[in-house]
């Protein structure tokens, strides 16, 4: 079994920033299957489609999954109203996550806004070898900083309006940092800027993408993103739910 459907009890819930919620679910065996960068596809009562949300953290021993999401529309609004002891029906763990080669290497993790959560479970694998750049709109939206510090990582926060940490973008903070590989999740302009850094430095970069989804398992071909074929470099479409959400940046046509 790679993934399955499960109705999970909500163990805890916290409002951690503006419109942003942090839930821990009892997912039992599905938590044991989870890899950093994978996602859960959540049924929303009254909605035709599930909502994809990244796995922020997994506790294999206790069988729990942690997810952090922001209210963006009706679906996430309905989910945000659930309480401990309510249930969430999830299809998980889905997708191709971050490929971890050598956790003894120094790595750079860069997250923007609500793209930050999937980096936490990844950061835990690297601990002190990870430098984590977190970018947010403003102080009110800063999330998970303490969690990355607890994982032993070096953390640099930037905000667009300068209300917290560095005033500017995460990509401003890269010069002078030493690392052999980069991992990212966030808005497309940020990913593009990181792709330029990767090109300049010749550093590998894995990025996580978003697209609207229906099935979540690769059957409906709904979540297409433009990519290059490895052999010919011809443009084609890959699918974020199955081939991704994490891709080698060289494959993506931004």
């Amino acid at each position: 079994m790679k993934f399955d459907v499960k109705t999970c009890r909500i163990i805890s819930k916290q409002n951690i920033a503006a419109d942003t919620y942090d839930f821990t679910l009892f997912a039992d065996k599905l938590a044991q299957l989870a890899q950093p960068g994978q996602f859960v596809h959540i049924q929303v009562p009254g909605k035709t489609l599930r909502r994809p949300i990244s796995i922020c953290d997994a506790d294999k021993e206790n069988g729990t999954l942690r997810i952090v999401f922001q209210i963006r529309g009706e679906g996430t609004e309905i989910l945000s109203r659930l309480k401990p002891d309510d249930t969430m029906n999830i299809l998980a763990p889905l997708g191709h996550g971050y490929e971890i080669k050598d956790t003894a290497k120094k790595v750079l993790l860069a997250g923007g806004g609500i793209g930050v959560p999937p980096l936490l479970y990844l950061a835990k694998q690297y601990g002190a070898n990870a430098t984590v750049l977190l970018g947010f709109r403003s102080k009110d939206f800063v999330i998970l900083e303490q969690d990355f510090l607890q994982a032993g990582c070096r953390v640099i926060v930037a905000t667009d309006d300068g209300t917290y940490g560095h005033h500017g973008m995460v990509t401003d903070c890269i010069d002078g940092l030493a690392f052999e590989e980069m991992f990212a999740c966030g808005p497309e302009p940020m990913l593009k800027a990181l792709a330029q850094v990767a090109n300049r430095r010749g550093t590998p970069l894995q990025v996580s993408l978003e697209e609207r989804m229906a099935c979540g398992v690769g059957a409906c071909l709904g979540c297409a993103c433009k990519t290059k074929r490895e052999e010919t470099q011809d443009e084609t479409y890959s699918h974020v739910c199955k081939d991704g959400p994490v891709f080698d940046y060289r494959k993506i046509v931004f």
Partner: protein
Amino acid sequence: MADLRVTVAGVDFSNPLIAASGTFGFGREYNEFYSLSVLGGISSKGITLKERLGNPPPRIAEAPGCMLNAIGLQNPGVDYFIQHDLPWLKQQGTVVIANIAGNTPEEYCAMAEKLSHTDVDMLEMNISCPNVKEGGVQFGTSCMGVEQITAAVRRHCTKPLMVKLSPNVTDIGDIAAAAEAGGADAISMINTLTGMRIDIQTRRPIIRNNTGGVSGPSLLPIAVRMIWQAYQRVKIPIVGMGGISSWKDAVELMLAGSTALQIGTVFFSNPYAPIEITEGLNRYLDENGIASVTELTGQMIPWEN
């Protein structure tokens, strides 16, 4: 245990539930959940003569009680299907239906000929894809078009031939009759209803193709009505679909005139739907003392007006 077996155009199905084209890929993904033999059959993703990359994203949107898609028939082409997917599908213990779409009658005929030389069980000719200009819909919306293309493909096809009808027409009864006149062995209906959603911030359609096909629960009453109308006009069996999400919906579409059923969008919220719907059907039949599911077909009792 009631008898759930049905026969469509001489092909035997272990139960009336068939995975609807385009919602189930070529079966491999859902095989992670269960053996595909829980399904009576599988209709493949729409196949074209040559590979198609499909439409640019976004391809998906949601609306109350339904979803929209404009995949644009992304598929690896008929030759690839025959070599790589068909042999595997044929080993899964379920009926395999190849769903084909084309740009010209010649393309449909060429695909029908190629597939007639394989062990695929049935062909479903899609003349109703709303999402690509060359998806056959130009043949699917006029009676003459439907009859002519059905007759042309019929001559090149030695397999049972099912024609999939578009709901985007004025009189579905006439269209169904035209498919029968053209020599179809069965009809399947309904494909998606063309729709559109707009992002009110950007004022852009959410789907990059502008319009998309509406599927899911909201389609049910339209499917019930159209199947009933078609049932009164044709003798060939109808494979009914559109918005089934529970066994009750399945019973309804059978009563309206379906011999077998397809389910699609429900997989996205509930991958286990076929198992739950079959169980529900079974219970309903047992509780009502009905020996075979075939006894439901067209047995609605309309009001006399």
